[in-house]
């Protein structure tokens, strides 16, 4: 295969991947963020303590997370057709990708939100804030650096899952690597795809880490840390 043959293929694949991962990330964040927060709030000692609801949500999340993606995709066929009107193509792949990522992201959110100092929650309660105020003014902003890291992790995982979306004809970089590289022995194309994937993932990881760190820098944990590091380096 010549470069002029490969180029349009790769271009299309990049867009397909971007499209699938972009939308499913968005849906995962919109769905997983409230779910993760709810997991914290309904737990024992939480502001909306409801142990039954907590167990139910927790179980659903666990089951959804334990299913291999390929099975989730097949299991969701009917649902996908109901939503998008089809079971093949990019749009059809977004449904299982998003549904697989929601519980994944929700667990990460839960961990991040649990880290928020309970004293801050009490301070807002003492000011007369309600639960919604606590969520908006404390839980989300205070865990934002961790939430950004969680989003990065989710995007990277979704890029991995999206490779399998080729099985429903959704295209994307992973699909090219499998179809051309593995099935047709186009080794060169496969390596280029792998390289692109590696670069994309590195860039996303870097950008995510950078964003999380720059938010974190002004946070409480980073106060005396740089000085200590300098001292250690000097000694």
């Amino acid at each position, binding site marked *: 295969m010549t470069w002029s043959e490969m180029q349009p293929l790769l271009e299309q694949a990049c867009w397909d991947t971007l499209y699938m991962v972009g939308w499913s990330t968005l849906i995962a964040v919109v769905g997983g963020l409230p779910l993760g927060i709810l997991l914290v709030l309904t737990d024992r000692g939480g502001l909306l303590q409801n142990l039954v609801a907590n167990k139910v949500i927790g179980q659903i999340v666990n089951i959804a997370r334990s299913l291999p993606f390929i099975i989730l995709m097949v299991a969701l066929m009917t649902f996908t057709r109901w939503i998008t009107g089809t079971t093949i193509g990019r749009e059809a792949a977004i449904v299982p990708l998003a549904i697989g990522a929601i519980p994944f992201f929700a667990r990460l959110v839960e961990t991040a939100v649990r880290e928020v100092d309970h004293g801050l929650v009490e301070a807002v309660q003492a000011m007369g804030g309600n639960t919604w105020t606590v969520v908006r*003014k404390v839980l989300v902003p205070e865990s934002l650096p961790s939430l950004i890291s969680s989003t990065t992790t989710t995007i990277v995982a979704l890029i991995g899952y999206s490779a399998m979306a080729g099985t429903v004809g959704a295209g994307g970089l992973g699909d090219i690597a499998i179809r051309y590289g593995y099935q047709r022995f186009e080794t060169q194309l496969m390596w280029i795809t792998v390289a692109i994937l590696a670069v994309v993932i590195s860039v996303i990881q870097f950008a995510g880490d950078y964003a999380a760190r720059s938010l974190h820098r002004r946070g409480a944990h980073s106060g005396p840390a740089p000085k200590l590091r300098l001292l250690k380096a000097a000694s």
Partner: protein
Amino acid sequence: MPLCPGTPTPAHSTVTETHVITTTDLTKVYRSRGREVTALDGVDLHVREGEVYGVIGQSGAGKSSLIRCVNLLERPTSGTVTVAGQDLTALAGRGPRAGKELRQARSRIGMVFQHFNLLSSRTVQDNVELPLEILGKSGTERSRKALELLDLVGLADKAKAYPAQLSGGQKQRVGIARALAGDPKVLLSDEATSALDPETTRSILALLRDLNRQLGLTVLLITHEMDVVKSVCDSAALMENGRIVEAGTVSELLATPGSELAAALFPLDGEASGEDRTVVDVTFQGESATQPVISQLARTYNIDISILGAAIDTVGGLQVGRMRIELPGRYEDNVVPIGFLREKGLQVDVPGREAVLAKEGAK
């Protein structure tokens, strides 16, 4: 007007006889996994308007539980809490969540915390604005008020800093500014100075004292340090095992024979130099401090008096003198001179005597 920390303010008192915080028969029982802990056991607390009231006690005595019950962060198991004439326990309703009325009442009660509890994601100014956001104030009003309060606590130049860039004392000043944002009548402070060094502790206490004087703010503070009570409190209560065992204004406490709080507020050292000697603690307050009673005593009864220890101090804005003296002879021989001192209007304690009396009573 900025308050300069540490500068003495005119010692005019803002205390009135109205009770602004009252708890009646307050109990709090924590139940967790079958275990029960009684943290509060029938607490009656009366805090007068405009005073600084200190609650002191050992770890686990129930101090935090008490102060958290005052704004109902903790639900009392029984009893009532009234703040500024409003029965908060009645507002609380039955469910675990705070209803609208209780939240409104809370917004009029300021609270400062041991670990400051500032949001690390917000600047100092935005932290102070938070209660105003909750109250639904407009942006311009919020920033005006926040800057005014930061000026009041002496941090006007730190408005744009993040909490991580402040020292502990500065963080607590922000915490205090934030607690004042809703124009509260009452400020609750749970060990606000326990995480600070002695120097910073003094400046924060001076700030609280100034706010109390200048704004007429009633302050209920919890501490385990006697120095805190000594330097700022008009009244104090001692807690043990979920109960208040002593309470009153500082001068009432000092006038109470055998008061543990008074002895701790004003400790005296010195042991009797022999078996047949009697040690007597004499406390002077106000008028009686000016009379030359000790020399009168020596002259009248022709006895030699040795002074083992003496101190004059200001406790809660009150000049108090205390002296430990030694009289020759046993207690039984000194009943008359001790009576003379009492007659002169002094408070006289005979250390160790209470224990003896209690033993005799038991027989």
